[in-house]
């Protein structure tokens, strides 16, 4: 509940969500100029999920992310400067320009990587959680995946394994309604992804992904149970993405004004601000100050990313093996 969050934590939540939003909005604008290489999948609209969940985590807790991974990275504390440089293909990037948008990772922060393979993270998270259990740590491992990945065999195998081994693992299905251009109403055979939890012997919980407080509370319960040895949870976060599957996607498969209506009625930043200012927990001036700081941070990250050096030709051949 909101009352359980201190003022500092509320400010942190807002800052994280605002940073993700501005990061993604800026990429959307810069991608349109043709300067950003490859393709990017933006997380704008889904900020409450990554933020509400990762606020419960420390650097020894692990997360595995998806192709739409920028928000998870930022919420897990990955350096925004390094991320922007990585997406611009620069040597100063988080992965020295070798990963790009879909492979940003920082294992020192428990960020196992965005993942270019849909459903790839499920088994990996089981392994991270198995290591935590065998090493008698009270850390947890979290697998973020989408409605598309919810139909992959790797996710089914991982859900089963997590219960069989009673792992401290949480499976977070971020159901934004579309796997690429295909509706989850078509591709997911049951009404809710969370309904599948009972088949794997774990609790399934549905939460409103536009509501930071709802996500934070549901995730808190699941994470606390996992830390105490109570096993895995499947958490379905229902939300929406504001941009296309990737940049350049015209989203003709969506209803006219679908995104505009969602933004107006449910936007996670707007509803958060309204709630905390309405309750007198934070002032608009405090939020505006964060807005200004984040805008400056993103501006600086782009300025640096543009001017930073690209990897040298010799970098092509390094980092394949630890020992050659």
């Amino acid at each position, binding site marked *: 509940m909101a009352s359980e969050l201190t003022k500092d934590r509320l400010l942190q939540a807002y800052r994280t969500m605002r940073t993700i939003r501005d990061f993604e909005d800026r990429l959307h604008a810069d991608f349109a100029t043709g300067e950003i290489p490859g393709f990017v999948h933006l997380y704008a609209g889904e900020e409450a999920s990554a933020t509400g969940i990762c606020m419960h985590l420390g650097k020894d807790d692990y997360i595995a992310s998806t192709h739409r991974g920028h928000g998870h990275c930022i919420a897990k504390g990955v350096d925004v400067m390094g991320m922007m440089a990585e997406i611009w293909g620069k040597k100063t990037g988080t992965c020295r320009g*070798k990963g790009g948008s879909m492979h940003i990772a920082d294992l020192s922060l428990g960020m196992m990587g965005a993942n270019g393979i849909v459903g790839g993270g499920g088994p990996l998270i089981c*392994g991270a959680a198995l*290591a935590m259990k065998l090493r008698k740590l009270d850390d947890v491992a979290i697998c973020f995946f989408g409605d598309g990945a919810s139909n992959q065999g790797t996710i089914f195998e991982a859900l089963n394994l997590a219960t069989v081994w009673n792992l401290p693992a949480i499976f977070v299905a971020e159901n934004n309604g579309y796997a690429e251009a295909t509706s989850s109403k078509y591709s997911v055979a049951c009404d809710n992804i969370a309904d599948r939890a009972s088949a794997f012997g774990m609790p399934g919980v549905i939460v409103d992904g536009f509501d930071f407080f709802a996500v934070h509370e549901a995730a808190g319960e699941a994470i606390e149970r996992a830390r105490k040895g109570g096993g895995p949870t499947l958490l379905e976060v229902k939300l929406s993405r504001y941009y296309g599957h990737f940049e350049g996607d015209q989203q003709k498969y969506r209803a006219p004004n679908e995104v505009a209506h969602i933004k107006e009625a449910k936007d996670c930043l707007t509803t958060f601000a309204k709630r905390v200012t309405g309750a007198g927990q934070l002032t608009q001036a405090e939020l505006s100050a964060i807005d200004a700081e984040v805008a400056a941070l993103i501006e600086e990250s782009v300025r640096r990313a543009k001017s930073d050096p690209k990897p040298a030709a010799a970098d092509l051949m390094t980092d394949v093996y630890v020992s050659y």
Partner: protein
Amino acid sequence: MARKITYQQAINEALAQEMARDSSVIVMGEDNHGGEGSPGEQDAWGGVLGVTKGLYHKFPGRVIDTPISESGFIGAAIGAATNGLRPVAELMFVDFMGVCFDQIFNQAAKFRYMFGGKAETPVVIRTMYGAGFRAAAQHSQCLYSLFTHIPGLKVVMPATPYDAKGMLIQAIRDNDPVIFMEHKMLYTLEGEVPEESYTVPFGEANVVREGDDITVVTLGRMVHLADQAAQAMQKNGVHVEVIDLRTTSPLDEATVLESVERTGRLVVVDESNPRCSMASDIAGLVAQKAFGALKAPIEQVTAPHVPPPFSDALEDIYIPTVADIQGAIGRVMEFRR
């Protein structure tokens, strides 16, 4: 004379010694002990052919049976390797890579490069390969060339009990993902194996037999057939050098090239199917880098380009034989421009 044990015992001993030395080493796979969750005996199997038998009781909690769920548990071994463990996962038959290959080649093999050199994935995937067991098309393939194709993986294939122990210990201590290929027909092979722990480095081929007339490059179980062929040719006055590659990734190019520079003749013996194989890889390497030394076309002795058959009448002619190798050596020796 040193103690003799089997290839299978050598693998078991390597696992036991490494598990005793390093508590972060765990063993996981289908029926690696056997009996999990059942009312009867635990360690009922010790692996489908008993290779991991006995480890379960020696190392409580560190030999983990898995569901038949290869993507799940191979991926879990990889994930655990990024978080402080050194798992040795068993993919029962290499043919089953078809259901878990993404975790191996898109995840484990890519982490280090994709993450800018900041990840280590010290996982070993032990797997059984090869024909001769009348196990047919889905339990008899070699497939090591598929792993060898992938940068980021190391691929090792011991031919002897000595190498099996030393290379498995090396694999467990290595900080990169290692595919450890065990030929199912070699498990009962006996050989001299020191009782103490030792390692065999990767990327160093073994010159099994020295000779100056012709080079035979081979690997895995074929090392023994090639050596028999070489021994037979010796009686005809042909001195064959037999090179066991031991690891296909990294590859010891220097030993191969030095030998062919000296002999001018090459036969490659590879149990796998011929297209895009280790045989074609070594032939290509020599054609490119030792062309001037060649006195005859390179011959490849491989299985034909068909799946492994079931019937003994067919499998026996599918697998390269000593006679096939002798025939190839003879043709290369007799070649005249």
